Structures are given as C-alpha cells and as structure tokens.
C-alpha cells in the first residue's frame, strides 16, 4: 500500500481556528511522512500540550500525548527502547521552551535521532493567549498587558550552542518549503530542530501571514552553507525587516543511540529479558 497524506486520516476534523498556522504544519508533516514512505504503524509521534498537540486527534500513527513540556524525555526513552522507529516530536514554544526548556538543551547535548517541530506562535494559545518564551519585546498578550519586557528565547541559537546537529527554521505559510524541511529533518541522523513560525490568528494580530511573508527569505538563496556554528549563530540572530528561513546548521556525528553498547545487538525492545549468566553477576558480591 502506498503511503499518502491520506493514510493518516482519522475520524476527526481539526478544531483549530480557521486560518491557524497549525494547518500548514499538519499538512506538511503528513506530506513529509508520505514522501519518506513512513506509514501509520511505523512512526511514533509525540505531542506536547497546547493547540499544536491537539493535532494528535487528526493524525493516525502511534502517538503519545504526554505531559505539557515533557515530549523530549519521552521521545528519548522511546527511541532508546526501539531505535528502529522514527520519532517525531510536535511541540510548542511554551511546551518545548517554557515548561520543557531544560529537556531541550539536554536532548540537544545527547544528540538522539529525533526530530522536533516547534510550533512557534509567541503565545500560550491553548490557555487563551499568554506570552510564550519566544514572544518578542513589546508584544501585548493576556499576561503582559503592557507588552513583553523580557528578551525572547531564540530557539535556534539555543539549539546550536546546546549541540543540536540539525537546526532549521520554517514557515507554516509555506507548505512545500516546510514539507521539504521536515523531510530533511526526519532524514537527518541526530537531533533535528525545526522552529516553525506559526501565525496564531486568534491571539496574535501582529505576526500575521503578511507580516512574515514580507520579511522571510530563504537562507540557501544567498549561497549560505550550514556548516559553521558561528556563522549559523550570526544568521540566527537576524530578526527584523529580514528574517531568514531554511537550514542554519547541520553536522553529522554519532547519536545518543549509537553510543549505547546495548543497542549494538538491535533494539532493546527485541532483546531477551533477564540475566543470561547469573553466576558471574553474583560472584561480585561474594
């Protein structure tokens, strides 16, 4: 059976607000899975809690909807238990960088072969629109009636300095581009972070589709090569009239799973349980 975007259909239709950027991410993700030939029972999708995570009801695969902020530890545990299954994390800027910020930097340093999509909408949308960690200064939200005063978290620089080996930014309004980016991220062997600019049409009337469209440019179009950390950080700091999208940094090195001796015999989940040589184990305690 060929896998198409339709293979992931469930009985539910999205309940996102009409025009929400999450639609674009949803379709790009299904397209990317279809393109890579990964079927519903072959992938494990791990969702955060937020509007983004509601996606679980309209994508049929193995899925985990865990706790707010805890997608990455869940993903790492699952991946170590069976590293033959592709693991994709659907997270939000609040989920992944607020509640889950510690896991983000520590996952990056371990380089598990996991893809993380961050629905970056600058708000805690599901809880009706408080500022998220990526909210830019001055942005007025329910929790910041006089505008955000903190420096925003930059998911890209944070990922790069923490050790992520694939760091990219996409746009929810560019489905073909995003499909390609997600497919590349999933194919990448290592910790792949895709920060996706996602307009929230309900709680953000500043960063709209036109706002982004008039600013975004594709990194590769300027001949940028994503191989140097410092250059990547420099690019990642650009935010204003021009905002780059594309792959900022990529590097191939051993993964968290490669580094576990137990996995050289195949997935943990498939191994015989128990201790083969009890005597040797016990002899230490005599």
């Amino acid at each position: 059976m060929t896998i198409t975007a339709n293979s992931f259909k469930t009985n539910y239709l999205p309940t996102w607000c009409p025009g929400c950027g999450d639609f674009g991410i949803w379709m790009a993700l299904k397209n990317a899975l279809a393109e890579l030939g990964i079927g519903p029972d072959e992938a494990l999708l791990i969702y955060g809690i937020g509007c983004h995570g509601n996606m679980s009801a309209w994508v049929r695969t193995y899925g985990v909807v865990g706790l707010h902020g805890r997608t990455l530890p869940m993903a790492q545990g699952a991946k170590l238990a069976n590293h033959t299954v592709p693991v994709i994390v659907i997270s939000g800027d609040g989920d992944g960088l607020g509640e889950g910020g510690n896991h983000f930097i520590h996952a990056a340093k371990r380089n598990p072969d996991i893809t993380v999509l961050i629905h970056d909408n600058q708000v805690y949308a599901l809880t009706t629109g408080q500022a998220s960690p990526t909210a830019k200064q001055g942005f007025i939200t329910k929790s910041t009636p006089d505008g955000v005063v903190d420096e925003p978290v930059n998911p890209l620089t944070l990922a790069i300095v923490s050790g992520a080996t694939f760091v990219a930014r996409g746009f929810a309004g560019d489905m073909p581009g995003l499909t390609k980016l997600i497919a590349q991220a999933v194919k990448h062997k290592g910790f792949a972070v895709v920060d996706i600019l996602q307009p929230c049409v309900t709680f953000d009337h500043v960063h709209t589709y036109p706002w982004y469209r008039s600013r975004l440019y594709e990194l590769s179009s300027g001949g940028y090569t994503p191989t140097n950390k410092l250059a990547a950080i420099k690019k990642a700091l650009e935010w204003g009239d021009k905002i780059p999208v594309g792959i900022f940094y990529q590097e191939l090195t051993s993964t968290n799973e490669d580094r576990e001796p137990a996995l050289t015999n195949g997935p943990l989940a498939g191994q015989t349980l128990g201790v083969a040589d009890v005597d040797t184990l016990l002899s230490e305690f005599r």
Partner: protein
Amino acid sequence: MAQSITWKIGGEAGFGIMASGTMLARAFSRHGYYIFTLNEYPSLIRGGHNAVTVRIATAPFYSLDRSLHILVALNKETVELHKNELREGTVIVFDPHDYEWKEEELPPGIILIPVPFRELVQKKGGEVIMRNTVALGTSIAILGAPFECLADVVRDQFARKGEAVVNHNIEIARAGYDAVGDAATALSALRLDSIEKKNDYLLINGSEAVGIGAVRAGLKFAAIYPMTPINALISFLADHAKSLGIVYKQPEDEIAGINMAIGAAISGVRSMVATSGGGFALMVEGLSLAGMIEVPLVIDMGMRVGPATGMPTWTEQGDLQFIIHAGHGEFPRIVLAPANATEAYELTVKAFHLAEEFHVPVFILTDKYLNESQWCVEAVVLERDVVINRGKVMTLGSEKSTTSFKRYDLISPDGISARSFPGMKGGQYIANSYEHDETGMVSEDSAMRTKMVDRRLKKIAAIRKVMMPPVVYGDQSSKTVIVTWGSTLGPVLAAMKANTRIIHFPWLYPFPADATKELLTGATRVIDIEQNATGQLASLIRAETGIEITEKFLKYDGRPWLPEEIIERIKV
C-alpha cells in the same frame, strides 16, 4: 568464644571507613557467618564523621543492638560520638600517638588496645589513608580468625590495581594483625566461634538487591538522577550496562527520568526509575501520567529524612502517605515495602511482573537504612529461576493499519487490555494523557469518561486478588500485637519477647484491609512502631479498617530503631 560480635570503625570521612566495613564483613560472610553492616555519615564528602558497624554472628539475627564489642577509633571524636554504645568489656582499638585517653573519661570496664596505626603504616611505606587497613588486620586478630580470611578479601579488593598494590596492602594488614600479639589471646571472649560453612551467602546492600532483582526480572532501561540513598543502584546499573545489555541513562532531572522511563515502557521495554522523596516529588506528575495511560513502571523510592533536603544521609519512613496519595486524579497503584535485602530482591522481581500484569506504576518503598546497609542474602534466593511473563500484549497480525488498535478496550472484564508497541503492524494507538476512548483518541464525552474511569479503577479489584497478606511473626495467639513495616521490622523482631505477635506489611497498597482487621481482632494491646513522627502506618490502618491504634512508638531522629529502645518502651 563469641557467638556474635559487633564491631565498629569510625573516623574522618574520606579515610576509607566504608570500604573497611565491607572488607571485614566479606572476610566473614565468605565463610558462612551471618553479617550485617550499617554506615553512618553526614551529608558531606569529607571532614565529617563516618562510621561503619559490622555485626558478625554464628546464627541468624535481625538487627544491630546498642552496644559494641569492638570500637576501632581512627580519631578521638569516634570515641566521643559513640560513647553511649560502649559497655563493660568493650575493646577500643586506637592509635596512642593520635591522642591520649584518660581511663576516667570512659565508662568503667573498657579495655584499651593501643595500636600505632600511623607508625606501622609509615614503617611499611604506606600512606596515612591506609590506617584502616592496619586496623582491619588488628580486628581480624582480635576476632581470632586466620589472617588468610582477610588477605583473600584484600586481594580481591585491590586486584584491579595490580599485584604490587595487593601485596603492599596485605603487608600493611599483616602488620596490624601481628601488632596485637598476646593481647588478642587475652581477649578470648571476642574470638568468634567457628561456623560450619553450610550457608552460601552474598553480601549486598539494599540498592544492589533492587538492582539484581531488576535485571533478573528483565529491566532494560533505567533513567535515574543521582540521589542518596539510591546512588549504589546507579553504580550497579552503570557498571553492568554493557555486560548485561541494558541502558542506564542519567537524565537532566527527575522529571526527565520518569518521562524517559515511561517512553521506554511505551516502546516495549521494562523500565524503572529510582529516587528519594525530593526527587519523587518531581515525578508526581509523571506518576499520574503513567496511571492515565496505563504504563507499567517500577519506582524504587528510597526514603530519607525530610522534609525538603532534610538529613539526606539518614533514615526515615516519612513518605508512606505521600506515596499512596501522590498524583492528581484517581488511578490504581501498588506499593511494596521490603524489610531487608532479601525482600528487596524478591519484591523487585515481583514489582516488574505486577507492573506488566496490571499496567500500573509499582513502588518499591525502601529507605536509607535498607539501601545502604549490607545484608546477607542466601545465594539460592538470588539464583532461583525468574519466569518472565509480559502480561497482555497485542497478537501480531490481528489489526489492520487503516483503523486504530483498541489499546484501552472496554470489553476486558478486569480493565486490563492488551498493549501494542510502536512499530508493531497495525498496532497504532495514542497513549493519551487526555481522557480518551478505546483507541486512545481524546474524548470529553460524559459517558466515555465514566466508563474509562471505571475501567481503570476496576484494576484495583484484579490487583486485590493477588495481593500479599501481611506477614505474621511470633506467637500467633498473642493478644499483644506490634504492627510495623519496612526496615523497622528488623529491630522489632530483634526486640520480640515471648507472647508478642508482629505484623509486617510487605504489601502496603492496595491495603490488605480485611486480613489486617482479622489479625487485629481480639488484640488487647496494639503497638505501632515506625520510623516517622506521625505514625503513618497507623493512619493507613485507621483509614482502611477504622481501627485506631493509640499506642505508637515513633522515632524520627534519622537513626534506625535499636531493639533495646523498643524493649524499654514495650515494658511500660
């Protein structure tokens, strides 16, 4: 000739005190003696006072008692701090060059054996830190054991460091052995009676017992953030990861730990976490998740003195009620509480099976005293075959890939449905922290919600069917009954007088209420003995049976109960 000797070594932290205890203990356990060791140390790496007590006996025993036969004092503080453990006839081994002891400062009848530790070490070209090795030699001599008993252990201990180091240490130990000379012979009351080696024992601490139980029961993944008193479990797992083909991952925090373990369980491997109260506090949300998505998970919860950071290297049983009620929302859990290393091993094996049979989180509720003390465990117990039953798992090929798998079906009468693991053909479902339908799809429907709650809580009835009853010791017909749990059982057993009955609860939750009620019916005096300040077992018994226990012996200074303390209070 002695049937039982209690030996203690004390000194500044960082001077190999702990290792000495283990070496002495092993020198005797290898020959079939019954052994127990307890360490006492502050939450510091150095500079504080460390002590290890080793009891060696020719017959089984349950606990240490208050008085020492031999105290090896590597500094003066050792004698000061442990003065109340001395009694007539206690031998103090000390270095006369370190400090001078005036007899009148000591209780009467103490026997002082000066041994120039430092001088002997220096003579043999050793370092100050090797004084404990001299002391071990001296101790072996006093205990009347052949030097070879010690030499064997020293050899194994230093084998990794090469022949030269081994020989040097043996030489230094020998110097201590020889130093006592005639004095030892004079102390014939301290010479241990011989034992026919018929018992094949291993010397392990509680954490190692849990570790051995876990790997024998099929543990494949553990994510454990360092914390006293379960650090020895981390070492056990990290050291054996490669040889046993398991993954030990050090997470960034306890929250990551439990979520990693849940992720691994979802993907089909037996997994566990371990921590102490403060770390577990951070896992409470994850516990509720495990309850909701019905993931098998084993949690080794090593209690220590709270609240907050408390006294991290001391013992307490202060978290029972917390563990039973932890987590928002309502879901089943199982709580087991071993009393000693043998039970720790056995209940750990059981915990993994219960977790996969009922798809619930299972606690092994341990404590510092259990985890960090070394216990004798019969080899046959640890060697016994462990049959691994994975519980209900989806039958391969039974599902289509165009619909989802009913991971949470409403048909199973006991509330337990088959699991599928990512990658299994047609097994896709959502492990959903939201309330969900049979395939795990989110649902807020009123009827579905009610059914799903009923389905999860139904498992409690199924669990009750395999529940372990309380264990009764002593005079079965006695009307004086002591209830106790966990590692407090040892001192209680040691204190047990004739007509007393003791009830111990290796299985604490779901609470065996009917059995307990029956056991307590007719009792005229019921005493609750625990290592906490509020009597948490007594509260549990009242909550579950209505029976109020008013006589409670509670200790909460971080030091384990001594049989003498219990005996004194029972008398009243």
